[in-house]
């Protein structure tokens, strides 16, 4: 080897060492960029948007004084998806960012979200800390994001109405038959003017009924609307609708205490306690919540919305971003504070079962029969897992339009095959 070659080799290795030292210098100032939206993930009023994040930042900066944070404030949830997409396209993806459920499938399949499997495995993170379906919301073959906040759908019951009709309040393991029977019993004309003015339910739609039957009809490359069970579920829905003579029950009817059941999300429950909160002022009916009804074969009926946080696969500060991501999603104090300040539930089991949470739930409840945290825990343990593929949100939107139209026209039984074909063409 000539002397020049040796010289070059030494120079190259020296500079490599230097670069390595520079990169790994722990005292170097690091700025993490965050992608956040203002307001609640669950479309309920929430004044304290950045409080929990700021608290987490403060706690994190205390631990890592050389890390600073940057985020653009004021992006509302409706604009967030478009803002984030723009940042990604421009190549300025934030290091750590919130992932809307509608965006997760897309972002994880195009390689924007960092695959967390290796990090989770390396640090032997006990994933059973999370409710499994909440964790699974961030899983698309691999874990791409961690749950930040969750929001289960629960069934709200008009306590007074059932008591007046002499019907026992159903327990948490009730079935859709109970749901139909009670709805059937309460649907009547109370003032004898020939018009039905008391109804069984409000806002129970085709997706709820499929959840109750435990059916998942959309897969990555096909859909199963033509299955026997699906037909049965839609038949049930048609039967249920027929009870009120096709009268469109409105939220006003529920507010006035004329409806027995209404599916609500947990965040709505906490925000409008009772729903909407003016009811508690102007009407006097008492109400409580239980899980959604199931069938004999299916007890997992609760739909769970999950807000996720992920990190960019292109982040230059992977370790720090991962630490911060863990703090937001797995730190008990931060999660407890989130439960306190926001309206959703925590994906961490220990937070949901904590004494503080119990107190918050009790404090929230001004009316009769609050949502007990043990009941809530049981509901959360048995939540449905949504399918994950890039086109899912898109196909769901189309299906929603087609099926609702068909249900309104009362031709759902005949239309299912046609709808199925249309959706399959979309999926291809």
């Amino acid at each position, binding site marked *: 080897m000539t002397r020049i070659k040796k010289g070059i080799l030494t120079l190259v290795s020296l500079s490599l060492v230097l670069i390595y030292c520079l990169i790994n210098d722990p005292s170097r100032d690091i700025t993490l960029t965050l992608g956040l939206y203002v307001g609640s993930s669950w479309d309920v009023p929430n004044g304290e948007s950045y409080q929990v994040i700021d608290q987490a930042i403060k706690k994190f900066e205390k631990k890592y004084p050389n890390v600073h944070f940057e985020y653009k404030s004021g992006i509302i949830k409706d604009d967030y998806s478009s803002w984030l997409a723009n940042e*990604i396209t421009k190549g300025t993806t934030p290091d750590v960012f919130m992932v809307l459920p509608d965006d997760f499938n*897309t972002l994880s399949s195009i390689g924007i979200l960092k695959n967390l499997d290796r990090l989770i495995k390396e640090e032997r993170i006990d994933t059973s800390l999370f409710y499994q379906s909440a964790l699974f919301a961030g899983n698309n073959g691999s874990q791409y994001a961690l749950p930040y906040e969750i929001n289960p759908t629960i069934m709200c019951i008009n306590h007074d109405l059932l008591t007046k009709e002499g019907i026992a309040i159903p327990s948490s393991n009730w079935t859709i038959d109970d749901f139909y029977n009670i709805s059937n019993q309460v649907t009547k004309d109370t003032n004898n003017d020939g018009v039905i003015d008391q109804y069984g339910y409000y806002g129970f739609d085709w997706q709820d009924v499929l959840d109750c039957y435990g059916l998942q009809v959309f897969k990555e490359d096909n859909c199963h609307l033509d299955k026997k069970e699906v037909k049965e579920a839609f038949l049930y829905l048609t039967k249920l609708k027929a009870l009120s003579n096709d009268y469109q029950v409105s939220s006003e009817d529920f507010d006035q205490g004329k409806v027995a059941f209404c599916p609500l999300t947990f965040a709505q429950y906490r925000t409008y306690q009772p729903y909407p909160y003016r009811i508690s002022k102007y009407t006097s009916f008492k109400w409580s919540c239980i899980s959604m009804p199931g069938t004999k074969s299916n007890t997992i009926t609760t739909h769970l919305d999950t807000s996720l946080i992920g990190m960019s696969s292109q982040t230059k500060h992977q370790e720090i971003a991962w630490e911060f991501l863990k703090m937001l999603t797995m730190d008990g104090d931060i999660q407890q504070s989130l439960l306190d300040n926001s309206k959703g539930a925590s994906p961490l089991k220990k937070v949901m079962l904590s004494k503080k949470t119990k107190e918050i739930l009790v404090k929230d409840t001004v009316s009769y029969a609050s949502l007990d945290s043990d009941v809530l825990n049981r509901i959360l343990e048995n939540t449905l897992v949504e399918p994950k593929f890039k086109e899912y949100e898109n196909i769901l939107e189309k299906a929603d339009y087609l099926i609702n139209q068909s249900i309104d026209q009362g031709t759902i039984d005949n239309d299912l095959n046609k709808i199925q074909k249309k959706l399959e063409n979309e999926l291809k």
Partner: protein
Amino acid sequence: MNHLTKEYVTKLKDSLLFINAVVIIYNASLFLLSTKYISVHYYARDFLNKVSYITRTPQNIFFESIFLFIIIVLLMKLREKDNLKMANGLVYIEIILSFLLIIRLNGSYNGILLFVFADLLYNMRNIKHMALLLLMAFGLLLISDFNILSNIIHMPSIESYLSFYPNSSRTFMLFAKNILASLNVVVFILYLICQVLVQQEETKKISKELQLASKVNDELKTYSALSEKMAEDKERKRISREIHDTLGHALTGISAGIDACITLIDIDPQKSKEQLLVISNVVRESIKDVRRSLYKLRPGALDQRTLKDGLIKMIEEFQSVSHLNVDLYYEWENVDFENTKEDIIFRIIQETMTNALRHGHASHIEIHLFDEEEKYMIIMQDNGSGCKEIHYGYGLKQMHERVAILNGTIHFYSEEGFRTVVEIPKIGGKKDD
């Protein structure tokens, strides 16, 4: 096609370089500008739905592609240098870098491999394993098509970037992109044709030159035979003149003197004694003359020199006119030979070296002169082709005869080259002198 020269090939290669530079800048700009367009028109969310994979920032795509291209071109220039030992390794680096470039450009352009391939053909010096390289380059070319490559490495297609432009702009952009890529292929094919034609031309030229050279060679051979013959004649004349001038002259004088003595010996013995003394002096003078003549006939190299110096000079001269590498181990420092003996030994060594070169095509010969208790030894070993059966031609016969004069023996062996072993007895040799 006489006008088709290497110059055209070079020009075509340069235009390939130019086209590739344009295509790469164009494609990289498409990514950069489309991103801007998508961002400004709020198409980003739809874009994410459309794109299959996205990781690199468009700025990265732009600058890294151009940077890689510059590196590839610099490596090509570096490889043009003569006697570059690393050339072979550089080719592999070039191919790998161009594949990286294809990946950076998200598989939108793979013609760079053709360019690298063209450069490889243009500059084949110091390149080993040509077949392997071609296989590698073409294998990569096959898999570097976007439709195949995107199955192996996740990447967004350029079409998904362009799909947000109005139809007419998109068509134009894709048209320009494809026409540039096709232009590259066309120029590459032209280049190949030119290269083949030039190669053919050169082969023809070389074979013509070879024919000429062989003709000249024949002429030279005839001439050298002639000059040898002339030299021989000249030498013969010189020897006869020498004999005539010295021995002839002396012997005539001696015979006349002896005749006189025969007549005188009875009449005046004293006078005849004087006469005989004169004759004796003439004989001595003649011996001196003969010696002097013989001295003139000595090998040129030994003239005024010791055997060792003569050998070294002869070897130097030999090495300077041939590729034969000679190692001489001379251990006869304390031996003093007669001139004749030296001449014979010198001639034997000279003949052996000539044979090693002429018949054995050897590149190296080792000559070892040493003495044992009762004999002097010469061992000469070459690394030439040797021969299956030793055929005693004129040269070997003469060597036999020469050694026989010294009462010695000579043996030839032909295993792993050719070996000549000469033994000269110390006593016998001396006795014979």
